């Protein structure tokens, strides 16, 4: 019976329960096994496909692991300098106000070098969606300490663990932007389990729908893992994330529009 189970016997129209989003390209993603970026890209692509807004969407990619995101999304995209994605998105949206504009940024990009751009875009209430992937580490450059690295957490530039006295405190960017009058919808999610993936997808959809209302910035943090940078297996990294990241960065909504 085992011989009969092969891709040929399984891949039939009647067995199809899920298909690759048409908003993703056929390029193979470069992300490490178990990394959350692929799932985050996928749900974002699915929402854009389901809302049928591919031709009205412009994305801005960061510097970091997802710098090459434009290779994977079948969208018009601009690649920003480190931390500057919200500045690009500000101009794109103001010049093309009928388009959907999003940025996709990691923690080093958004919460360290791009802090000013993040806060001022949110404070001006730019009608854009900011997706913030927080895995507490600089993945692309080889696992250095990020602004969101937890106290005691080891990285290549905090090899004995983050010492708050010496290296400062982990920054809760989502908590900060939620206090700004310019933000309209602020939430923190994850993509490590099917139920969480569904919630994240729902949040992204809501954010794009809110963008039509011109009510302000939507900000979605996705707490994610970095198996390579954390030096763990994918399964270990997800467990570690639940036990260590979630208590400090609790999942849930920070700011939800009242009229919706």
């Amino acid at each position, binding site marked *: 019976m085992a011989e009969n189970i092969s891709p040929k016997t399984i891949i039939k129209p009647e067995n199809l329960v899920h298909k690759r989003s048409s908003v993703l390209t056929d390029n193979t993603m470069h992300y490490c096994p178990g990394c959350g970026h692929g799932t985050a890209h996928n749900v974002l692509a699915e929402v854009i496909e389901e809302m049928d807004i*591919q*031709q*009205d*969407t*412009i994305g*801005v990619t960061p510097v970091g692991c997802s*710098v*090459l995101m*434009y290779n994977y*999304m*079948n*969208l*018009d*995209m*601009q*690649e*920003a*300098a480190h931390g*500057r994605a919200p*500045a*690009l*998105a*500000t*101009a*794109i949206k*103001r*010049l*093309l106000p009928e*388009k959907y504009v999003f940025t996709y940024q990691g923690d080093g990009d958004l919460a360290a070098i791009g802090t*000013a*751009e993040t806060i*001022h875009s949110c404070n001006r209430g730019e009608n854009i969606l900011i997706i913030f992937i927080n895995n507490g580490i600089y993945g692309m450059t080889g696992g250095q300490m990020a602004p969101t690295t937890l106290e005691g957490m080891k990285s290549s530039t905090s090899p004995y663990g983050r010492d708050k006295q010496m290296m400062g405190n982990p920054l809760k960017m989502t908590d900060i932007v939620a206090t700004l009058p310019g933000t309209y919808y602020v939430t923190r999610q994850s993509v490590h389990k099917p139920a969480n993936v569904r919630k994240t997808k729902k949040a992204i959809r809501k954010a794009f729908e809110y963008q039509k209302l011109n009510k302000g910035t939507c900000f979605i943090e996705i707490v994610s893992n970095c198996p390579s940078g954390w030096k763990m297996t994918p399964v270990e990294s997800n467990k570690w994330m639940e036990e260590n990241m979630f208590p400090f960065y609790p999942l849930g909504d920070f700011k939800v529009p009242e009229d919706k």
Partner: protein
Amino acid sequence: MEKELRLMKGNEAIAEAAIRAGTDGYFGYPITPQSEVLEYLMAEKPHERTGMVVLQAESEVAAINMVYGGAGCGKKIMTSSSSPGISLKQEGITYIAGAELPCLILNVVRGGPGLGTIQPAQSDYFQATKGGGHGDYHLIVLAPSSVQEMADFVELAYDLAFKYRNPAMILSDGAIGQMMEKVWLKPQKERSKEAPAWATTGKTPDRERNIITSLDLDSNKQEQFNIKLQDKYREMKEKEVRYEEFQCDDAEYLLVAYGTSARVCQKAIQLAREEGIKAGLLRPITLFPFPTKEIRRMADQVKGMLSVEMSAGQMVEDVRLAVNGKVPVEHFGRMGGIVTNAEEVVESLKTKIIGG
């Protein structure tokens, strides 16, 4: 808006000219001596006149990256600043050059280094013409020497920037920015309704996705891209050199100067000729591409050249490269925000070139 004669500051003239040239977006940040550009635009409400977007950014860094975003959508985008602010913009400018985006950057130069002073200077020549940020790239650099040229160069800068998909800089100075002169303003041009084929405007089914980036991790491809950029700069050098000659026909000595210094040199030439010294002026209008051939040609005619700049001597290096040792080339200029006067120029010509 019809053609119109007004009395304006250079900074105001360029702001009005930007609206009339059909600029889609301006992103700026206040700094002396160019804040009038942003102030004028905010007061004029160009959004009501043409639909132009004007935004005061949180920093020069954010402003130049807004320029990148807007330019990536194929729009006519402008920013302005003065020396310390232009230094902050250099990261964005090299990304814009690397992504081959057209845009207009105005630098109303003040004395440096550091916070320096707020008075006029020409000490950003190297930064403007040799790249400024990291990597092998050049800006198209235009140097106005009057309020009229501040206005006129807006359209020229856009035309060249879009023709070559390259950022263009108007390299002015605090004197041109602040002084008032008569200026003819062109009639209002409509903002373009069409985007270039490469612009990010949303991927439609009839074309591949458009990506604006300066990244290519494959070094072979990156080298090919650099070769393409260099070809572009070579083409600019062949086709886009602009300059003006003043009393060069019978000149035995040549002053080379741009912007405010060129204005001073016109007076210096008058004074020199009253003393029987046949001096002429070659005024580069494009600093990149530089009028190398024209200066080389003048080296066959004159006995020496003086590069007059309000700096420690920056353009003089390009003059020397053009002349290649054929005749003596010296520099004269004041620094730190002091505008050179005509008498000093004549004196310097006598001591450094004629007597030397």
